[in-house]
């Protein structure tokens, strides 16, 4: 912290009785025993296979419609519905943006992956994400109402999963983290739920 460090009530709080919800520095929060499940410390990336997954999903959702489009155009041209010059300019006019979009869809998952980090510790779950808009959200374990681990058909192929944490909140009523390895997702879920029960 710089000299601009906010002068909050931390010293004042030391005078009041500690039972009152104190501003606990991370190290002092020993309210839960050491987590029963071994978790890697620090910020973690999600599973790198999520890049492949995103690429496939992105490219397929681009390639299938464009293939159909080109097929229709080509057939129309072959059967004389379109003059050759119009066909040529249509193909280049549509083709170039589609190729550009394809390259972007190839590259984007890497950026997305690089900027997605999570951390699960005694306090709870923290997620950092966003390439252009950087968001980070923290959910204390004591606020976790319930959790879901879901696997879509594509995710199952790569044994990936999405962990969703539900709180009693409003905008942040459910916070999900996609691209975890299924095993990891289950372990995180167990950790969040058990330390929640410890906290109760």
């Amino acid at each position: 912290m710089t000299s601009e460090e906010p002068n909050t009530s931390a010293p004042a709080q030391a005078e009041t009785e500690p039972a009152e919800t104190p501003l606990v520095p991370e190290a002092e929060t020993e309210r839960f025993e050491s987590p029963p499940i071994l978790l890697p410390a620090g910020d973690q990336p999600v599973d790198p296979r999520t890049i492949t997954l995103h690429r496939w999903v992105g490219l397929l959702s681009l390639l299938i419609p464009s293939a159909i489009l080109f097929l229709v155009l080509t057939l129309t041209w072959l059967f004389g519905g379109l003059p050759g010059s119009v066909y040529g300019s249509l193909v280049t006019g549509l083709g170039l943006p589609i190729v550009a979009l394809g390259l972007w869809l190839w590259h984007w998952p890497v950026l997305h992956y690089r900027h997605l980090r999570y951390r699960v510790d005694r306090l709870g779950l923290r997620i950092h994400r966003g390439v252009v808009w950087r968001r980070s959200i923290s959910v204390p374990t004591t606020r976790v109402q319930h959790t879901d681990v879901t696997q879509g058909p594509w995710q199952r192929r790569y044994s990936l999963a999405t962990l969703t944490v539900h709180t009693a909140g409003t905008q942040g009523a459910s916070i999900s983290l996609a691209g975890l390895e299924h095993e990891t997702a289950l372990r995180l879920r167990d950790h969040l739920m058990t330390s929640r029960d410890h906290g109760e």
Partner: protein
Amino acid sequence: MESDLRRLHPLSWLFLTVSFAKGLIVPLLFVLFASGSNPWARYELFGAVFIVPVLVGALIKQRVFSYRFEADELTIRDGVLTRNERSIPYDRIHNVAVVRNPFHRLLGVASVRIETAGGGAPEAILRVLGLGAVDELRQQTLEPRTGARREVTVSDETTDAPWADRGESRLLEIPPLDLIKLGLATGPGIVLALAAGYLYQLQWWEFDWIDTSKWLQGQSPEWLEWLLQSGSLGSRFLLGCLVVLLVVVLLRSASAAWHLLKYWNFTLARKGDDLRTDYGMLTNVSLVIPVHRIQLVTVRASVLHRWFRRATVEFESAGSSDAGSDLDAQLGAAASPSRRQFLAPMLEPTEATSLLSRVVPDFSPESVVWQPLSARARRRLLGRTVKLVVPLTVLLVVALELTARFHWIPSVQALWLPLLVLPYSYFNTTGWLRHAGWGLSDRAVFYRSGWLKRSVSMVPFSRIQSVSQVASFFDRRRDMATISVDTAGAGTLGHRIQIPYLDSSVADEIHRRLFAAAAATEFDW
């Protein structure tokens, strides 16, 4: 089970009919208008087609509807073909809202809505109950939480206000004068007035000045006649201002009258762990709010508030909707956009602080150390305005130059844009930043903002559901971030904890502290 079935009040069918009929108003009107040239002949038919089934439906509903107090939950049975039995655990009930309009009061009954944390629509509507039954319902549903559960006792006495004064302490009462001030200070006022003024200005060039001024002659003072007769731009502008002023005054007066009726005799009382507000002249509303269900408190004061030396204290509680609106209450309340309710509609600011300290100590702003937003925020905000206004002005000048041949506005007039916008922006930004700030007490996080309309919001650590930190593209260029806090039952409108323009190191620090503090507390439904 010694507790037996309870039924609705014998006159319920009357109110059920009305509520069913309300749902049919649209189709009814449609049929009425669609029936074309001779609607008179069909009125009896409508009566038979619509009212009779509605009446029968109401009678059946009254017969099948029953409720029962189980050991831990309220069980409600309803439905003819599809039988439905709903169990609502007592400890999940957040609010028992009692609404009485003049008809209810005439017949000594009340509509009761049972609200839980689910937000949105109420869990159950009991339309209608006798006052004794209301009292019993309140005891049964709200008391097990605070103390030992009482035996089921049905009191036969039907006093006028059966739930009054049982170990209650009255916290405040709002005098009528303050309600008028409240209406003047909030009102649907300024926006409507501006819109009206704007419309007026649009038609202004086609306005029949001669006629109007003739009509006004003789009944208006000399200065007004002078204004009307000289058709110059300045006098028209003055006249426009006058009209706007008149509209503002009219709307504000209407708002004052409305607030006076709606919040007539507003009282806030405390009984054990519950707060109760009672208000309303025509439709009497009575709400019970458990203190620990309050999630966020906002104290706000507009210019007029400060002129009257008053502030408005609002709160958001998980799962309650705005029972204050009669229409909502009677239609069964689709979630209103803002679920905010008054803790105290009009109060001296110092009293507001002491009220919070006494009633909801977690929210007390007494020990807050206020911190400003980033020192670089001013430069950023002013810079943004300049970057927007300068190109716009240039564009405007160019456009006016290009169309000069067809238009009489000289391009110099485009300079009005920066001349008006820049000083306004300067004052607005400086004022806003002077009053904006964040702070932490030992139990809560605070955020205040606003220049003319100022608000302070507060959320105790124990009510924080999650903390998020966002840095937009522009934020990152200046190394800034926004911190916001999510709570249960947050509405879409209103001031909340969303602290923008923080230096990112400060934002990191707030984020870390709030996260740790929230993690160290339990959230109590």
